[in-house]
Every structure is written in C-alpha cells, then in structure tokens.
C-alpha cells in the first residue's frame, strides 16, 4: 500500500514538473464536441476522420456528442471551454443559422475558426407521380402561377430552410413552407406525398433517385455532385442557388496560433488521404479543405448572406 502511495505521489510530481507550457501540443487526448446526436450525419462525418487524425496527431480524440437547441448547446459548451486546444468543435452552417434565428447565442466570430474540411450538397427533388412539376421549368412555372401552394417541407430556421429561401429568391417562386423536421422527416413527407418539392441533403435521397421514385431537378452547388454526376446544378440551369453544407473545425475564442496551425495542416492532410475520401464518398461527403485564412473569409461572406436571408424570410431574431 505504502509503495503504491509513494509511486503515485512520484508520478504526480513528475506530471507537475512537465507542465503544459514545456511539452509540445498535444500531450493528452483531445475532446471533439459534436453538437448533434450520435448516429446523425454530422456525427458520422466526425467519426470518419478521427481514426486517421489520431495517427497524424499522436493522441487520441474523444468525440463528445452534446445535442440540443439545433446545435446551439454543444456550440455553447465548446465556446466556454479553455482555449488550450484540448476542446474543439465540429460544426457546419447551423452554427450561423442558429445564431441569426435566436436559437443560439454563439456565432462564428465568438469562436476561433480553424479550417474547413468537407461538404455535402443538397438536391431539389419531386415525386415521380407529380407529373406536372417533374422538370425545373414546369416547377417554376407552376410555382409562379400559384404562390404559396407548392408544399416545401423544411426544419424551420435550420440550414435547409435557408436553402429554400435561396431557392425562392432565385426562382421568384413563393412556396408553401411546411415544418417537417430533419432530413428523414422531409423524405418521409415526400414519399408519403404530403409534400411537392423538397430541397435536402443528397445522402438519404440516393436510393430513391436510383429506384426512380424521386426525380432530381438540380443540385445546389457550384460543381456537379460526384454522387449524382448526371444531375445538373441549379447554377447550370440559370438559377444562382449554391447551398453546400461546409463542415469545419473550430476552437474556443483565443486559441493559440500554433494549435490552429497544427490542426490546419492536419485538416489538409486528412482531406488529401484517398482512404478517407473513399469512406466519405460512401455517405456523399466530399473534401472541401479551406485554410484558416480562406475559411474566415468564407465564413464572413456566408454570415452576411445568411443574415440577409433570415431578414427576408422573417426568421431574424
């Protein structure tokens, strides 16, 4: 017993002397907060890269799911953590949308943005039985003639709602926006024919597009989505609707520059890894690495755009 006590004391002393300032970052496991529940698309995207990131980092990464408030709760927890690089945040567009709708109190500039890693795209689709709107022209023509009639399910105030607002802005169609919840719920409403047009992330729609049940009318991206190479983008069809969900890495405000730089490099290497790319493609995720500098420019622009959309859509807090 006494031997054990002595040993642990010695160990404690040793730890005390090595202190955090001397050793190179990281010297202990890192907590990565995912502000959404386990099993969701955000959670899966984080879990895809941790194994490889652990190798590059030489430390283990613990994913901690803190769900609630449309991502706002986990974001809040991350913002309150010590800015020592041992608590990081995995977030996408909802960081900014939740701030503007009043669901969350933290925006991108209350954190230290590190880098962007990947993205997924959204597709506009209709049910195959909805013959009078099965092309983009028909949809827009009918929508313009009958404002607030075509049912478009969204999660109010979430990213896809902003995408719908962007679609409205570009096409001049006023949809009948219905509240249906997340991706699964919206797909459910479309397959159950309680919706007319859905603008949502591609992954869950793929099997139905392949089976011919859903007809894709356009992807909200600059370039065609690798998962749907035959589907033209909305931009190609003359409507400037670009709505990718960029997923990136953040830290609490005041994160040291060396930590930011280390993670920026790791992010770049991760997205260049063909194995990781292969795993990501299975769930329609694609690399879209942005360096710290580019990421911040991107966020600022995105923030202004989403703020304006929130204002026109009546979502602003």
């Amino acid at each position, binding site marked *: 017993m006494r031997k054990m006590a002595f040993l642990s004391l010695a160990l404690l002393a040793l730890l005390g002397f090595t202190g955090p300032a001397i050793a190179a970052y990281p010297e202990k496991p890192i907590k990565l907060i995912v502000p959404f*529940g*386990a*099993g*969701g698309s955000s959670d*899966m995207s984080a*879990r895809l890269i941790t*194994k490889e990131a652990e190798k590059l980092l030489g430390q283990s990464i613990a994913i*901690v*799911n*803190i*769900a*609630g*408030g*449309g991502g*706002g*709760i986990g974001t*809040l*927890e991350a913002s309150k953590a010590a800015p020592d690089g041992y608590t990081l945040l995995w977030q996408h567009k909802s960081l900014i949308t*939740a701030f503007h*709708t*009043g*669901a969350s*109190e933290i925006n991108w500039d209350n954190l230290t943005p590190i880098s962007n890693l990947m993205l997924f795209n959204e597709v506009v689709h209709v049910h195959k039985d909805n013959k009078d709107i099965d092309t983009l022209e028909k949809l827009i023509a009918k929508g313009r003639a009958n404002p607030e009639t075509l*049912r478009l399910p969204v*999660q*109010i*105030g*979430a990213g896809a709602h902003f995408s719908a607002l962007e679609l409205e802005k570009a096409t001049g169609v006023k949809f*009948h*926006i*219905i*509240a*249906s*919840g997340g991706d*699964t*719920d919206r*797909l*459910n409403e479309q*397959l*159950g024919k*309680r919706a007319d047009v859905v603008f949502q992330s591609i992954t*869950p729609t*793929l*099997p*139905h597009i*392949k*089976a011919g*049940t859903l007809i894709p009318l356009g992807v909200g991206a600059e370039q065609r989505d690798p998962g749907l190479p035959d589907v033209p983008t909305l931009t190609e069809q003359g409507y400037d609707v670009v709505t990718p969900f960029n997923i990136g890495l953040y830290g609490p405000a005041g994160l040291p520059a060396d930590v930011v730089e280390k993670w920026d490099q790791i992010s770049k290497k991760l997205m260049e890894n063909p194995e990781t790319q292969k795993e990501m493609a*299975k*769930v329609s995720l694609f690399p879209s690495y942005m360096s710290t500098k580019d990421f911040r420019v991107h966020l600022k622009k995105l923030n202004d755009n989403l703020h304006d959309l929130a204002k026109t859509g009546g979502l602003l*807090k």
Partner: protein
Amino acid sequence: MFFLEHIGLGLQLVLQPSVFLLILIGTAIGICVGTIPGLTAMMAIAIAIPITYSLGPMQGLALLISLYVGGMTGGLVSAVLLNIPGTPSSIATTFDGYPLAARGKPGKALGYGIAASFLGGGFSYFCLLLLAPTLAEVALSLSPFEIFAIVMCALVMIADNSQSSLSKALTAGSVGLFVGTIGPDPIVGVPRFDFDSPQLSGGFVKVSILIGLFAIPQLLSDVRHAHEAEKTIDATYRDILPKLRELGQSAVNLIRSSFIGTLIGLVPGVGASTAALLAYNQAKLASKHPEKFGKGARDGIFASEAANNAVIGGAMIPLLTLGLPGCPAAALLLAGLTINNLIPGPLLFTNSPDITYGFILAFMVSNVVMVGLMIILIKPFAMVVRIPKYLLIPPILAICVIGAYVTNNRFIDIWVVFGFGLLGYWMKKHAYPLAPMVLGVILGPIAELHLRRGLTASKGSFMPLVNEPVCLVFLIISVIILVYPFVREHSRKVHLAQSDADGSSAGSNRGGA
C-alpha cells in the same frame, strides 16, 4: 422460391460460428446496458459502430442488432426489481412489474416480462420478414395529424387515477407537460420558458428527468428500510417460466400489444415508450379486471414488454425498405449498414438479398439468445432484492448519476437528476403519482411537435383532425380513455368491499381479452 432461397442463404450467414458468437456477446452486453438506468441500447450501438469497421459485414451488423435487442429487453430488469425503468421504454413495466416483485415474486414478474419480450419481438420480426413492403406503405401514409392523434391515446393516460386521486394525477401530468415545453420550441427552435438561462435553452435531457423522478424518490424511501431485505425469492425455473395456460389466457392481449408495438415502430419519432404505454392502456381498457392494473397484473407486464420489443421489428421496416430511420437506434443501424455498402431503400432487397435476409434473421436469432440468457441471468438478477438496501442504494445511485451524465455529457444534467429527485420525493410523500408527470414530459413534446407540423401544412386549420378518419378514430379512443377513470371512480366504491378479500397473485387475473 426466390424468397425461400434467400432466407436459406441468409440463415447460413447468421449461423456462422463467428456471427453467432457475436450475437451471443452483443445480446449479453445489451441486456446489461439496458439494465442500467440512463444507459440505452442506442449508446451501446454508437460505441460499437467503430468496432464493426474491422469485422465482416454480417458480423458487424449482427453485433449491432443484438445490442439493440438485448438493450430493449434489459430495461425490464431494473423496472421490475428496483421500480426504476432501465430505459424509457420500460416505464409502463414498472406499473405492474414492481408491485408483483414487491409481493415476493420477482422471478415471476421477470418471467412474464421475458416471455412477452420474446413474443412481441418475434411477432414484429415476422411482420418485417413477410409484410415489410405493405407496412412501409402504412407508415408513409400517416400524416402528422394522425401521428398526433395516436400519441394522444397514450398521453391521456395522465388522467389515470389508479394510484391516487384524479386531481393529483392531473396536477402531476400538467407539471410534466409544462416541464416538457422548456427548451427550444419544436418548430422554430427558439428557446422558451428558459428563464434566460443558456443552460436551460436546450431543454432538459429526458433521461435525467426520468432517472430523477423514478430513481431518487425510490432510493430515498428505501433508505428508511435500509437494513431490510427480502428473505425468500421465487427463482426456480418453475416459478419463472409463465405457464402455457397463462399465455393462452392473455393471448389476445399479447397479440394486440405486439401489433401496437409494431405499428408504433413504423411511425417515425414516436418511440418504444409511447408504444408500451399505449399497449398498457389498451390492455387495461379491455381487461375484465382493470382494478388489478397497477397492483401486479400479469397483463400489465405483458402489454408493456410485448409492445416495446415489437417496436424493434416495426422500426426496421421503414429503415430497410425506405432508408428512413424512425428512432436514434435505427439511425445508428443505418450508419452501420451504409459503412458496409448496404444502402437501405427500395433496391436493398434486390441488390443484396442474402445479407438483408441475414440482417432480419439476426434479429430472430438474437431474440432466442435473449430468452436463454435472461433465464440464466434471472436468478442472479433476482438475488438483488435479497441484498440489504444499505449496500444496494449507493451503487445504484452512482450508476444513475453516471447514466444521466453520459446521455449528453453535461454536468448540469446531474443537478437535474437531483432537482427532479427531490421534487419526486415530495410528490410521493404527498401522494402525487409520478407516472403522469413522466408521461407529460416524454409524450407532451411528441404530441405538440406533430400537431404543429400538421398545422403548418394545413395553414392553421384544425379540420384535418376530424376530417381524416384515422385521426377521428384515435381521438375518440382518447376520449374514451380520458372519461374512463371518472366512470371507474364511481364504480370503485362498489368493488372496494370485494377486492379486500383478494390477496392472491396476478395469476388469477383473467383479464386480457
């Protein structure tokens, strides 16, 4: 022929020694996880997913499936023995499971639960195997208004006054409904009733409230009998296994509850706790001896456990045929399937029939393994009631606190446990029933969500509630359930004199048809 051929190939996949071994391990771990309040099957699956990367597809899926099956069943153990539901889906099991165990028959109570779990699960897996496409159509056809009406059938149970006066039940239920509204508005996501505290803006974690209300008051009242323990328990196999006669008498109840569970499983976002409560309610309504419910009725345990396990098979139907996960556990299984290049949806059965049937058969095998394991484990589990309370309370409390924390990884959730624990203790002392409050907290938000979704689709009109036939039927059932306690209150006095003489076991309860 196509069908039988692929079932045969699927069976070969499942009965490989490595797959079977993983089912055995997964089911055992699942049962243990389900037993611990706060830990759910979902967490076990989330932790196991990275492990499945290195296993073969069938091996990995079998592990996830068996964790799910075991986790759903394990919840009944703590519900019965400690009056603390191990998972939210076992809330309704505490109503009769614990009273029966408290009468010195924990083995019998567990036995009823296991039999019902097995039969309910089995029923739903056969539905999955044989009727998946048809039932998927049913799932798709339900509108938000219809889902609201179905949830209302379970929610009106807050007016149940079998344990106290109607006014106290309704008060507790209303408090629960209010607590359920704290946090983000379900439609627009903006915080409400959060008293401007960012800590409250995300709402309470339901599991913390559940543990607080069920576990803490129970443990606090147990402290008063800290040196007591049961002397004898019924844990011989003869005591445990329900007799065929008992199953026969409850056949209608078992089938109805399994059907309710499967149906609720199909509906996205409603969940096993609703299914169990709904089935319990229907069993009570149909019973010839509703007064025995809440006092250790066999049919109460049967209804709850058959329904919550039947949810599993039901939930797999929209997942496999449409790629629509209706609950967090299903979402994780979807991830597990995707990792292995199996994309659920209309083409799954044609593209990879063998492994898809293997997937379904793995549920069935796990169901059988579950019964075997539970029968072996019943004796050690039931021994828990022979441990003096002063040795039992501290570890249970510790486990509850850990369970509340790991659900969402926030320290405040532990304070929520203690806050609601003290409230629950006060309520218990003043004869306010806890179950209506928990129902309000869990079901209130589900009902509100679907009603308000429906209202955005109908542009604010409530007419679909009476125009859609399914809505109307379920709302009428809800009204009957709501009025029923008033009628019973009236007739209770008449029964009171007779029921004094009735001290026999729940085995004499011939209700259920």
